[in-house]
C-alpha cells in the first residue's frame, strides 16, 4: 500500500538526513556558481579581444567541455587529478572543481554573446566622447550586456543544480545519495517507499529549479518587449 511507504519517510532521522543531503546539494551548487561564474566572466571578456591564439585556446576549452559529458569529466578529475598532482581531494572538492570548470566554459559563451550583442557604434561613440577602455566597459558595455546575459546565467544556474545530482556517482552524500541509502535500508520491506523517496526528490529539485526558470523566462520576455519598443 502506498501510504505505508510515506510514513517511513518521517520515522527516526530519515527526514533530517534528507534535509542534510539537500544542504550538500545546495552548497555545491552555490560554490560552483560563484567560482564558475567569475571564471566565465573573465574568459568571456577575454574572448572578445582581438588575440588569435587566445581565441583558439579559449574556444577549444569551451568545445571540450561541450563535447565530453559532465559525468565523464567528473570521473576524469576524480581519477586523474590525484595521480597527476598528487593531491588528495574529497568527493565534494572533485565535484566543485569539475562543475566550476564546466560552468566557466558555458558562462564564457554567455558573457561573450552578451558583450558582442552591444552594437559597435555604442562603443565607438563612447570612444568619441573620450572614455578610456575601462570606462567604456564600466559605463557602456556592462550595463547593456548585463540584461542580455542574465536569463542565460539563471538558466545555467538551474543546469548546475540539476548537475549536482551526479554527486551520487562519486559517493558524496547529496540528496540523491541519501534517498538511495534510505531506499536500500527500507525498500525491501515496503516497495512503495522508493516511490515516495524519489517522488520527494523530484519535488525538492523542482522547488530549487522552477522559480529560477520562471524568473529567467520573465526577464527575457521583458527584455524582448523593451527592445521591440
Amino acid at each position, binding site marked *: 500500500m*502506498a501510504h505505508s511507504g510515506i510514513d517511513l519517510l518521517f520515522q527516526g532521522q530519515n527526514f533530517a538526513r534528507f534535509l542534510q543531503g539537500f544542504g550538500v546539494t545546495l552548497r555545491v551548487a552555490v560554490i560552483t556558481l560563484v567560482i564558475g561564474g567569475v571564471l566565465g566572466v573573465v574568459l568571456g571578456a577575454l574572448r572578445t579581444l582581438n588575440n588569435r591564439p587566445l581565441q583558439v585556446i579559449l574556444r577549444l576549452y569551451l568545445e571540450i567541455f561541450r563535447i565530453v559529458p559532465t559525468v565523464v569529466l567528473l570521473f576524469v578529475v576524480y*581519477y586523474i587529478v590525484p595521480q597527476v598532482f598528487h593531491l588528495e581531494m574529497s568527493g565534494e572538492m572533485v565535484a566543485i572543481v569539475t562543475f566550476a570548470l564546466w560552468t566557466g566554459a558555458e558562462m564564457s559563451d554567455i558573457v561573450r554573446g552578451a558583450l558582442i550583442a552591444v552594437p559597435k557604434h555604442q562603443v565607438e561613440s563612447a570612444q568619441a566622447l573620450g572614455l578610456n577602455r575601462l570606462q567604456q566597459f564600466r559605463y557602456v558595455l556592462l550595463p547593456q550586456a548585463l540584461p542580455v546575459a542574465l536569463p542565460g546565467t539563471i538558466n545555467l544556474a538551474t543546469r548546475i543544480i540539476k548537475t549536482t545530482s551526479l554527486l551520487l556517482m562519486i559517493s558524496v552524500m547529496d540528496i540523491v545519495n541519501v*534517498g538511495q541509502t534510505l531506499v536500500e535500508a527500507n525498500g525491501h520491506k515496503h516497495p512503495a517507499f522508493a516511490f515516495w523517496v524519489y517522488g520527494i526528490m*523530484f519535488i525538492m*529539485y523542482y522547488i530549487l*529549479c522552477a522559480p529560477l526558470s520562471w524568473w529567467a523566462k520573465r526577464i527575457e520576455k521583458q527584455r524582448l518587449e523593451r527592445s521591440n519598443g
Partner: protein
Amino acid sequence: MDWTVIARSLPQFTAGFWLTLKLSAIGILGSLIVGALVSLAQYFKLPGLRQLATVYIEISRNTPLLVQLFFIYYGLPGLGVKLSATVSGVFGLMFLGGSYMAEAFTSGYNAISKGQLESGRALGLTNVQLARYVVVPQGLAASVPALAANVIFLIKETSIFTVIAIPELTNTALDLIGLYYRSNEYLFVLVVAYAIILIPLSVGLTWLERRVRYGTFGN
C-alpha cells in the same frame, strides 16, 4: 598509458558504443515525437491538453535526468509498474528530451512574423492550412539550431544511464575501471568514443542549420 590494455578493452567499448548510439537514436526520435505533439497542443491552445503540456514541461525541465531515471526504475515498481533498465532509460530520455524538443519547436513557431500569419489569413487560409503551409515549414526551419543543440545534449545525457547499470559507453568504462584499476586507459577510450560520435555530428548539424536557413529564408 598502456596500449595493450586499450586494445583488449575494445570489444567491450564497441558494444557500449553501439548501445549508446542505439538508445540515443530511439530516445531522440521519441523526444521529437513527444516534443512535436506537445508544442502543437500549446500552439493551437487545445483545451485541457495545453495545460497538461505546460505541467509536463515544467516538471521535465526542472528535474535532473538522474532523478527521473531513479523514479522510473526504482520508484514506479512501488506502484506495480516494473520496467527493465533499458526501457526505463529510453523512457527517461524521452521524458526529458520531449520538453526540450517542445520548447525548440515553440520558439521556432514564435519566430514567424505576425505579417506572415496575417497575409495567410487575408488569403483565406484556414488555421489548419496556415499551420501546414506557413507555420510548420517556417517554424521547423527556425527551430533547427535548437533541435540540433538538443540532439547533442541528449546523447551526452545517455552517460547518466550508467546509474541504472545500462551497459552503454560510460558504464562500460566505469565497470572496466572497477575490475582492472586502469583509469587512464579506459577514460581515454571513453573520451575518444564520445568525440567520435559528437564531433562529426556537431559539424554535420551546423552544416544542416546553414542549409535549412538558406533554403527557407535566404540568409
